[in-house]
C-alpha cells in the first residue's frame, strides 16, 4: 500500500477566530434570507439581509467583513439556499438582484473602513453616532445605486423606472434596518475585539 507523508501547516489562532466569525456571519446572512416578511409596497417580501450587511461591516471590519460577504456569494453560487427567498446558484449573481449581491462586499468594506479604519478592530459602541450614520448611509446609497443601475441595464429600462422597482419601495424598510443597526451598536452588548 502506498503511503504519503507531509507535515501539517496549522492555521494560526489570529486567523482562525476571525475566519470562524466571517463564516458564521455569512451563514447568518443566508439564514435571514429565509425569514421573509410580507411588505405592502412591493410584490417581493423584505428580509433582514441589509441589517446583517450593516452588522458585518460594523463588527467584522473591512477585511474579514468583506471576506464574509465574498463567502456568502460563493456559498450561494455553489448551491447553498441563501440568496433571497432561499434560492441558490451562479445564475442568481447575474439575475435581477445581481447588482445588490455584488455590492454587498463593497458596502461592508465601506462601513468597515469608516468605523474601524485600516488598522485592526475597535468597539463600534465607542465610535461617534455621526460616523456610524454616515457609514451606513453611504453603504445604503452604494447598494441602491448598484442594484438599480444593474436592473436598468439588465432589463433595458430607464433608471427612474428601475428605481421604482428595485429601490424606492424598499427605502422605508431599509431606513428602519439602519436605525436597528444603530440601536444594536448603542446597546453595547457585543464586543467585536
Amino acid at each position: 500500500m502506498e503511503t504519503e507523508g507531509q507535515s501539517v501547516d496549522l492555521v494560526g489562532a489570529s486567523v482562525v477566530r476571525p475566519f470562524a466569525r466571517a463564516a458564521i456571519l455569512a451563514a447568518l446572512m443566508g439564514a435571514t434570507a429565509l425569514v421573509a416578511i410580507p411588505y405592502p409596497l412591493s410584490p417581493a417580501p423584505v428580509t433582514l439581509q441589509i441589517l446583517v450587511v450593516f452588522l458585518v461591516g460594523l463588527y467584522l471590519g473591512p477585511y474579514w467583513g468583506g471576506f464574509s460577504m465574498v463567502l456568502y456569494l460563493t456559498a450561494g453560487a455553489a448551491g447553498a439556499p441563501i440568496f433571497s427567498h432561499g434560492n441558490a446558484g451562479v445564475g442568481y449573481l447575474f439575475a435581477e438582484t445581481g447588482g445588490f449581491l455584488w455590492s454587498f462586499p463593497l458596502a461592508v468594506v465601506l462601513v468597515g473602513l469608516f468605523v474601524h479604519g485600516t488598522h485592526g478592530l475597535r468597539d463600534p459602541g465607542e465610535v461617534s453616532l455621526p460616523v456610524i450614520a454616515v457609514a451606513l448611509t453611504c453603504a445604503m446609497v452604494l447598494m441602491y445605486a448598484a442594484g438599480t443601475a444593474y436592473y436598468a441595464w439588465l432589463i433595458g429600462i430607464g433608471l427612474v423606472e428601475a428605481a421604482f422597482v428595485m429601490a424606492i419601495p424598499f427605502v422605508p424598510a431599509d431606513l428602519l434596518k439602519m436605525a436597528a443597526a444603530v440601536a444594536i451598536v448603542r446597546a453595547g452588548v457585543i464586543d467585536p475585539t
Partner: protein
Amino acid sequence: MVVYEPDETLAHCLDPRSKLAFQFGFAFTALAHTTPSALVALTALTAVVLVSARVALGRTLYAYRIPIVVLAVGPLLAALTLGAPWVEPAAAVDPAFASYRVLLILLVSAAYVRSTPVRDSRAAIQRTVPGRAGRLLATGVALVFRFLPVITADLRTIREAMAARLGDERSALERAGTIGLLGLSRAFERADRLSLALQARCFSWNPTLPHLAFTRLDAPVLALAVVLVASAAV
C-alpha cells in the same frame, strides 16, 4: 427551493469545474445577446441542460416565482407612458426579451445546484482559487452549508420566544433590533466555539482534498463553455 438531489444523470457525472465554467459561459453570452434568434438558441441549450440534469421544470419555476414577478414588472413599467396612449406594448418587447434571458440563466444554474454535492463544489473552489485564499474560501463555503440550518434554527427560536412574550406586537424597529442583536450574539458565541474546535482539530493550510478528475464527458462541456464565452464577445 432548488437543492442537490442524488441521482445518476449525465450532469451528476460531470466535474463541477466544467459545470461552473459552462454556467459562467452561458451567463456571459446570455447577457450579451437579446435577439430573438439568440434567445431561441439559448432556450434550446437550456432545455438540453435541464434534461441532462433531470430538473423538474414546474417545481423550479415555482421556486423562482418571486424573481419571475420582479423580472416581469420591468417590462410592464416600460410599457406604461405618462400620457396618452398610457400603454405602449411595443416598448415592452425588448425588456421582455431581456427578462426572459435572465430566467434562462436561472434555470441553467438550477441544473448545477441539483446535480452537484457540496463537497464537490468545495473541492472545485479549492482547486480553482489558488493559495491560502482558496483554502479559506473552500472551508468557509463548507461551514456556511453546515451552519445554515443551525443559525436558521437560532433565528426561529428567537422569533418564537419573542412571539411567546407578545414581542410581535412591538414596533417593527424594536423587533428588527431584537432579532439582529440576539442573532448576532448567538452567531458570535457559535463562531468562538467553532474557532476553538477548529484549532483543537488541527485546522491546517494543507488538508487532504476529495478526489476530483475530469473525464472524457467533460471535454465537450468545457469546449462549449469556451465557445459560449467567445460568443459573448461577438
